């Protein structure tokens, strides 16, 4: 897919690194392994070990010790951790005790010895790299031995040597190529030491012995270069013993045909010039074995300055040489590998910009080597512009030491215009003294295929819930992975790899959003990372998360886009739920606090600011107790602890403090907050201001209390009513039962009086008459008493109707005349002729006449006259009762009509009565809408007058209002209603029912004509009253009465508004006048 360059997906870096390692690091590794291979040859190990042991043996021979302590010497387990010799020995001395057992003995300043034993197994065991250093160590040991021999004054030098040896060893460990130089340095040091020793050490023999025991071959010659002495190491290296070489010239013995003649010449010339010489030369040993030798030859002068001979220290550097050989070989191999692996290589002179590109490098881009200018420009020209920055950064990092190597993946333009991906890696191999890079080299690997494969692999491997999509914008090909289809509920072969499979399955509401996001990505390179709903095969919607990356051609147009699709439905739902929850918390009017276990406020929603009158920021981090007044803290704490203990605790009511110190009444609902593992990690508290609720509740409570009271009252009322009913029934019964025996008494007395039981004397007649009058009085008294109580209860039924005046008077005349006769009073009733009908309850009117007349008779002296007269006034009839009694004084008049008022001066003191008569009379008069008054003077008799209204509605209204004004217990509003029966013949029946036994006395019928009845009475709600009238009539008549129409005509205030009330009623009646007249 070279023509479709892949964009770098950042997440793939780690994988890319892997590729790099495989391709690039692997190759240098070959070299390293080769080098290690050299270093680990058993021969080398053995060699070094032998050297060391030999040296140790020689040192051991130097001295003996008197006291010995055994120690097992740690055999340099780590190169850099080896115990410095300077520390082992200081400030005493060291000796080798037993070369085979590798035992070293050290002495302190007082000569106390310590034995250090090297375990031979351990010496063989250490890592192979140690061997080289072991050699150096041994050398140092040897030198130290010499130093010790030379005396304590040279201990410092020995330490320096040791340090040097260690540093050398360290360097050697890593920089093999420099070993030669290090050896040189070492040798120089050695030479200097020897010089030093020569001048300072008195015992040359010991020097010789030291020389003899060093691992380097030491050769001493006379001035003619003939050998005078060689040490054992010489024998080891060359195979020749001391005896064999004494007197001979070293070069003659050792040099061979392969020895470099130039070197040989340089040595000879140096010797001739009596200079110090250092050369490396290939020689052959006695057995014909070839070896490389580094020679350090120094002229030795005697005290007089004459040349006495030469001292040569010769080191076997065969192994070094061999290593160099191997290195060269490795390099050759590497080159082959590079060629074989089709690696493009570059070798860049950073200062000049010149670059050597290999053939592969050129061909990788479709060019012939000749077509590529060997300059860094060539690279710069083909790098994809988008990748240039990254490459430059990577270079910079390496140049400035931040990265060990330069490594970068970028696109290069192929000759045919397509992009190829390369891994570009290299390193600087030459720096100048200031640390500036001079030369660098590296490789190019074509990883285009790898990247493509990698992307798909990566995405596919990312998890079962991730689907992969890939859309070639040039060809239109779409690839949808099996996972992609699985997310939508399809098997791989059930959904075609088409654009439509994607487009059509996006939730319609999300489609525009998704497509515009993708287009934005293709045009503006903004990230394509979007969550949307896809339609699942089962018809449900699934939340998915798509990410994608396009690749753009050199013309900037997107050529391909690919990415992943993940099913995030559950997560998204959880998120949405969480968002909703968060929104609820945000929007809640209740303060919501999140608390840590210790009560620290962790979260506070905006409502907290309102409730506590503090900014939310001020709350978070503080302890909850700052919000709780002291008096409520313990209770709050208990509440919280109960919740924490897992109890189901109802919300509690308490208090919270506001910033200004005021308290607010709240309800607090607390719940525990748990982490994923179910541990309680804190609390959530919902705090609600219940001030209003509390007030509301108080109101509700008082309402409820009122309702209860009302119920109670209603109940009491019902009971009272029942009791009253019973009382009245009782009164009725009493009245009834009382009359019968009374009648019996009266009748039998009357029988005797009338002579039916035999002759009666005059005296007996008088007595019997007294019985008769007394029974009548008793009856009147009882009736008065009962009427009085009924009147007070408002239960005295009134049946007003148009009635003729004689109808009232005729009935009373006979009763009264008998009384008058018994009291020797002349009763005269003089009714005016042609009186109009009155509107009244005749029974009540009759009672009034009886009452007043009875009183008149009672208080009149014998032989006097009681006169009853009638006359017509403007709108009423007046009935007067005159007597010639003692009359009443002013005081009497004032209290005359009160209940239980006893009139004085009764003519028949035996019968007193209850003093109810006049009170009842007045009330009965009022019931008939009349007036009553009295005109009296002491000694001149009395005249009681009362009126009854003429039957005329207007007059009645006036009268009604007038009478009511005088009453104290009357409501101050009146209502007027009109009852219109469906059939006019019903009018009388309705009227009768309204006036009947069950009718209340507070309803007044003011007109009855035609088909209408206008009524009015005390109430402040005409509508309710209207309803009451309807029910009342219905009760009386059954269902038929529902055909009546009851119209509330309004209610009006009374008595303040008496005049307008009157007018209202009269107007109401007005439309009935025609009917009335008819």
């Amino acid at each position, binding site marked *: 897919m070279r023509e479709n360059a892949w964009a770098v997906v950042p997440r793939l870096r780690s994988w890319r690194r892997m590729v790099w390692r495989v391709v690039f690091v692997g190759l240098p590794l070959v070299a390293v392994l080769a080098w290690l291979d050299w270093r680990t040859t058993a021969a080398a190990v053995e060699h070094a070990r032998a050297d060391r042991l030999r040296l140790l043996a020689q040192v051991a021979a130097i001295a003996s010790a008197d006291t010995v302590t055994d120690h097992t010497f740690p055999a340099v387990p780590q190169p850099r951790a080896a115990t410095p010799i300077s520390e082992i020995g200081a400030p005493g001395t060291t000796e080798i005790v037993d070369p085979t057992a590798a035992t070293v003995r050290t002495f302190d300043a007082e000569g106390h010895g310590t034995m250090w034993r090297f375990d031979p197994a351990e010496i063989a065991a250490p890592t192979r790299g140690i061997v080289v250093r072991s050699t150096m160590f041994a050398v140092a040991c040897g030198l130290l031995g010499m130093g010790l021999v030379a005396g304590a004054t040279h201990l410092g030098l020995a330490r320096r040597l040791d340090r040097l040896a260690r540093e050398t060893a360290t360097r050697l460990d890593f920089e093999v190529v420099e070993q030669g130089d290090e050896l040189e340095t070492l040798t120089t040091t050695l030479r200097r030491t020897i010089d030093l020793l020569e001048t300072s050490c008195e015992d040359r023999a010991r020097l010789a012995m030291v020389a003899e025991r060093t691992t380097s071959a030491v050769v001493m010659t006379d001035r003619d270069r003939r050998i005078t002495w060689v040490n054992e190491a010489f024998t080891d290296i060359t195979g020749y013993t001391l005896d064999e070489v004494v007197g001979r010239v070293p070069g003659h013995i050792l040099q061979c045909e392969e020895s470099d003649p130039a070197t040989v010449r340089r040595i000879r010339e140096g010797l001739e010039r009596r200079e110090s010489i250092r050369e490396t030369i290939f020689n052959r040993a006695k057995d014909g074995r070839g070896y490389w030798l580094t020679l350090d030859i120094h002229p030795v002068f005697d005290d007089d300055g004459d040349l006495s001979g030469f001292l040569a220290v010769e080191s076997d550097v065969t192994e070094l040489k061999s290593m160099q050989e191997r290195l060269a070989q490795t390099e050759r191999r590497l080159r082959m590998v590079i060629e074989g692996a089709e690696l493009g290589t570059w070798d860049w002179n950073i200062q000049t910009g010149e670059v050597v590109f290999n053939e592969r490098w050129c061909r990788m881009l479709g060019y012939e080597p000749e077509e590529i200018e060997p300059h860094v420009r060539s690279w710069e020209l083909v790098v994809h512009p988008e990748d240039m920055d990254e490459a430059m950064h990577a270079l910079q990092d390496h140049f400035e030491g931040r990265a060990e190597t330069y490594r970068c993946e970028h696109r290069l333009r192929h000759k045919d215009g397509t992009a190829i991906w390369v891994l570009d890696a290299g390193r600087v191999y030459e720096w100048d003294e200031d640390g500036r890079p001079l030369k660098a080299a590296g490789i190019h690997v074509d990883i285009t295929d790898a990247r493509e494969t990698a992307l798909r692999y990566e995405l596919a491997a990312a998890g079962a819930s991730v689907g992969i999509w890939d859309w070639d914008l040039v060809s239109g090909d779409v690839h949808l992975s099996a996972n992609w289809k699985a997310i939508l509920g399809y098997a791989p072969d059930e959904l075609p790899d088409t654009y439509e499979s994607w487009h059509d399955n996006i939730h319609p509401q999300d489609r525009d959003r998704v497509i515009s996001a993708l287009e934005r990505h293709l045009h503006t390179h903004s990230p394509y990372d979007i969550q949307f709903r896809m339609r699942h095969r089962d018809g449900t919607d699934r939340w998915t998360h798509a990410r994608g990356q396009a690749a753009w051609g050199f013309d900037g147009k997107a050529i391909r886009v690919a990415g992943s699709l993940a099913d995030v439905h559950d997560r998204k739902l959880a998120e949405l739920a969480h968002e909703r929850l968060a929104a609820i918390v945000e929007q809640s009017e209740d303060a919501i606090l999140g608390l840590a276990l210790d009560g620290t406020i962790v979260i506070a929603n905006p409502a907290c600011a309102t409730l506590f009158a503090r900014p939310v920021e001020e709350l978070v981090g503080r302890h909850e107790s700052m919000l709780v007044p002291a008096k409520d803290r313990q209770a709050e704490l208990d509440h919280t602890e109960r919740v924490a203990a897992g109890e189901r605790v109802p919300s509690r009511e308490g208090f919270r403090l506001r910033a200004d110190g005021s308290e607010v009444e709240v309800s607090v609902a607390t719940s525990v907050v748990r982490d994923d593992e179910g541990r309680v990690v804190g609390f959530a508290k919902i705090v609600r201001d219940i001030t209003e609720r509390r007030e509301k509740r108080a109101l509700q409570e008082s309402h409820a209390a009122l309702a209860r009271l009302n119920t109670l009252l209603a109940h009491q009322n019902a009971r009272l009513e029942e009791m009253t009913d019973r009382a009245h029934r009782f009164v009725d019964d009493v009245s009834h039962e009382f009359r*019968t025996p*009374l*009648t*019996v008494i009266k009748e*039998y007395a*009357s029988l005797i009086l009338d002579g039916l039981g035999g002759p009666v004397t005059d005296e007996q007649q008088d007595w019997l008459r007294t019985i008769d009058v007394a029974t009548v009085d008793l009856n009147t008294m009882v009736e008065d008493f009962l009427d009085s109580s009924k009147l007070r209860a408002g239960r005295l039924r009134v049946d007003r109707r148009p009635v003729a005046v004689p109808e009232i008077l005729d009935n009373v005349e006979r009763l009264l005349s008998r009384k008058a006769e018994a009291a020797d009073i002349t009763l005269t009733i003089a009714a005016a002729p042609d009186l109009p009908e009155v509107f009244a309850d005749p029974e009540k009117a009759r009672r009034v006449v009886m009452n007043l007349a009875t009183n008149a008779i009672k208080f009149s002296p014998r032989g006097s006259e009681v006169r009853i007269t009638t006359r017509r006034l403007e709108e009423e009839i007046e009935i007067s009762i005159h007597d010639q009694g003692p009359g009443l004084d002013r005081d009497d008049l004032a209290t005359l009509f009160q209940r239980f008022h006893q009139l004085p001066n009764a003519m028949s003191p035996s019968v007193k009565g209850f003093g109810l008569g006049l009170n009842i009379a007045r009330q009965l008069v009022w019931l008939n809408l009349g007036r009553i008054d009295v005109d009296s003077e002491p000694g001149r008799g009395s005249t009681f007058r009362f009126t009854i209204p003429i039957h005329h509605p207007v007059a009645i209204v006036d009268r009604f209002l007038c009478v009511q004004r005088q009453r104290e217990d009357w409501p101050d509003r009146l209502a007027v209603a009109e009852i219109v029966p469906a059939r006019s013949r019903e009018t009388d029946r309705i009227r009768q029912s309204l006036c009947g036994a069950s009718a209340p006395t507070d309803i007044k019928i003011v007109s009855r004509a035609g088909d209408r009845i206008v009524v009015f009475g005390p109430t402040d709600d005409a509508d309710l009253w209207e309803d009451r009238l309807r029910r009342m009539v219905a009760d009386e008549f059954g269902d038929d009465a529902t055909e009546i129409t009851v119209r509330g005509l309004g209610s009006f205030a009374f008595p303040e508004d008496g005049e307008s009330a009157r007018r209202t009623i009269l107007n109401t009646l007005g439309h009935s006048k025609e009917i009335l007249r008819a």
Partner: protein
Amino acid sequence: MPDRVLIVDDERTLARVIGIRFKAAGFEVATAFSGESGIAAATADPPAAIVLDVRMPDLTGFEVLDRLRADPRTASIPVAFLSANVQDSARSAAMAAGAVAYLTKPYDPADVIAVVTRAIDAHRRSA
């Protein structure tokens, strides 16, 4: 032959004393002490007039009157109520029911005899 008056009242002493009055006035008297026995007596031997109490244990005077009116043998017999109930409404109801008079206790014996005498005369005239 004197007219016979039936007096119906559960109060026996009262019935008796009324009876004495009527006898004294020249009437033949029969008495009954309950509604049912009153009806039985009236039906068995229809009197010239009946004086009827309203409130009795078994039947009210109004019920008795209705029963009497319903029986052709007694339908036309004049009936005068003698009641302890002085309410005008009760009087109206009695008159509406077809009583010839509504007298209240305590009554004037002269009134009772006058009313009954008048009623018997009126009844005879109309018959």
